[in-house]
């Protein structure tokens, strides 16, 4: 008799654990959705967030330009070398230009820059808002009748959404130019050949795809950073955990969104 009871209790315990996990996941999704909904609701409160928007655009965007350019600079060089190494004697040398342009504009500039900014911007937002949260500054704002979403979240999300494409565009330009110079100096591909390769399969869609993708990365990174910061608990340790969580989730979301946009926009599309 004891064995069946114990087995029944074990099953009940497993089902309870599964249910608790499901509830937690659903709660997490629900909290995230509620957070996004609260942010969207606060967007019309322009008078609250507008005075701070350019500040955050400068912090999140303009100050991030050197990082994006630096990453793209070396990415372009590596891509040119890699293209020459991979297909050197098999295909014409101008395909170095094609490979550099396609890779930089469509994939590497948005993703690498997004990952870098996930660390810089996401951690920055999470740490700043987490500190405000644990020091009860946000409670003080609410006491002063400030909407924390309109005052803290919306300007950061808008700044991330608008300035990520700017940083990525800069990275695209720097990456292609550095790839060009690398092809010219290190790979011995002439400028006309490189330009021929760049122009061969270039379409405006390449740039549009990269910029839209980077805008979605900016939205995700800033939203995740704000969410992690506003949900920070405890003291400095909680702030550090929020920053870490923001960076990790942002990086994962960047890759998820990258795959999402590839499925949405590249499925069935060819360079015809």
């Amino acid at each position: 008799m004891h064995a069946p009871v114990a087995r029944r209790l074990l099953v009940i315990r497993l089902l309870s654990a599964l249910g608790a996990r499901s509830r937690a996941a659903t709660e997490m999704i629900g909290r995230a959705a509620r957070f996004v909904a609260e942010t969207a609701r606060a967007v019309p409160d322009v008078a609250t967030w507008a005075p701070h928007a350019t500040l955050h655009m400068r912090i999140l965007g303009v100050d991030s330009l050197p990082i994006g350019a630096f990453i793209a600079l070396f990415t372009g060089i590596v891509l040119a070398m890699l293209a020459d190494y991979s297909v050197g004697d098999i295909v014409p040398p101008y395909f170095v230009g094609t490979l550099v342009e396609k890779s930089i504009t469509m994939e590497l500039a948005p993703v690498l820059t997004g990952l870098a900014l996930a660390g810089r911007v996401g951690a920055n937002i999470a740490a700043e808002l987490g500190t405000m949260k644990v020091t009860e500054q946000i409670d003080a704002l609410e006491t002063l009748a400030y909407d924390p979403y309109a005052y803290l979240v919306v300007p950061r999300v808008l700044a991330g959404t608008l300035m990520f494409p700017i940083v990525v565009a800069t990275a695209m330009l720097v990456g292609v130019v550095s790839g060009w110079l690398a092809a010219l100096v290190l790979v011995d591909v002439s400028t006309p050949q490189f330009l021929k390769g760049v122009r061969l399969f270039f379409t405006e869609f390449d740039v549009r795809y990269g910029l839209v993708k980077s805008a979605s990365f900016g939205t995700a990174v800033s939203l995740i950073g704000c969410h992690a910061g506003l949900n920070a608990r405890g003291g400095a340790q909680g702030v550090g955990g929020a920053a870490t969580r923001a960076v990790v989730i942002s990086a994962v979301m960047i890759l998820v969104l990258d795959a999402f946009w590839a499925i949405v926009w590249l499925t069935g599309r060819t360079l015809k």
Partner: protein
Amino acid sequence: MTRTRRVNDAVVGATVLGVLTVLIAAVLWVNQSALGDRRDTLHVRTRDVGGVTLGSPVVIRGVRSGRVDQVALGADGWVIARLALDEGVVLPEDPVALMQSSSLFGEWQATLLDGSGVPPDRELRAALSEARGAGDTLPGALLPDIAQLTAVAGRIAGDVAEVADRVRTVFDDSAAAELRGTIRSVSEVSAQLRRTVAAQAKNIDAMSVDVQRGVRDLSIAATVIDSVARRIDASTSRGEIQAIVSTVQQAAGELLATSRQLRGLSGDVARTQVRLESAVANADSVFTKINRGEGTMGQLVNDPRLYRNSDSLVVELRSLVADIRANPRKYFNLRLF
């Protein structure tokens, strides 16, 4: 605070504006968009553009002279491609457009060339002829790309493999042995021929001497003939032959007339002969009668008396005539009224 915010606004605005400007300029430059440039456009009508897309180069005699500006489906199964040519580009006479692959890596181009320079392919020329339309629209056609050519080559390779299989079936071991035997036989025949040729070489030498001699004689004869021909030519040039011919013609005419006269004379002779025969017969009858002493002449010939009487009569007549001459009034009396 206000000053800081203004600085932030300016920095962000300048950054956004600068990056967007550079990005748009780069895209336009890479895309070879013509902003403000004057470009001549022309339309091409074709059944299929293949891999030609927006931005594909337009090439004239191997020189890039523009780009494909637009590709759109037209009516009745046509595709209309708009080509933007660089300023100052001169089209070839009777231009046609060929959509063709420009490399093995998926690059396509629109090649403008003179209609007379189209490759001599019957289907291609038929496609161009069909695509000729009214107005300024150029006819276009699609050249097969490497994939299609490879497919054709694959079929040819299959045919060759089939032929090779058949050849292998025909030339089995026994056939190969027979072939080797045939080759040996041919080799032996060849050796025999070589010996025969060596043996006949002397005869051929002698024959060649004779032939040389004959050739020499022929040369001499040719020289003689040449001189005769020269003479004939000279005579011909002076008109003597012509005169001879005309004389011969005249003589032939006269001979013809003479023969006609002779033919008439022969008729007369025949008739005269008949008469002579009749006369001879009559004479014979007369002479027969005379010999028989019939009639006056018979008696005259056969009776001497008649002769004598006649002679005396003549004598008497002569004396009568002399008398008349001496005395005419004796015999003649002439009166008037």
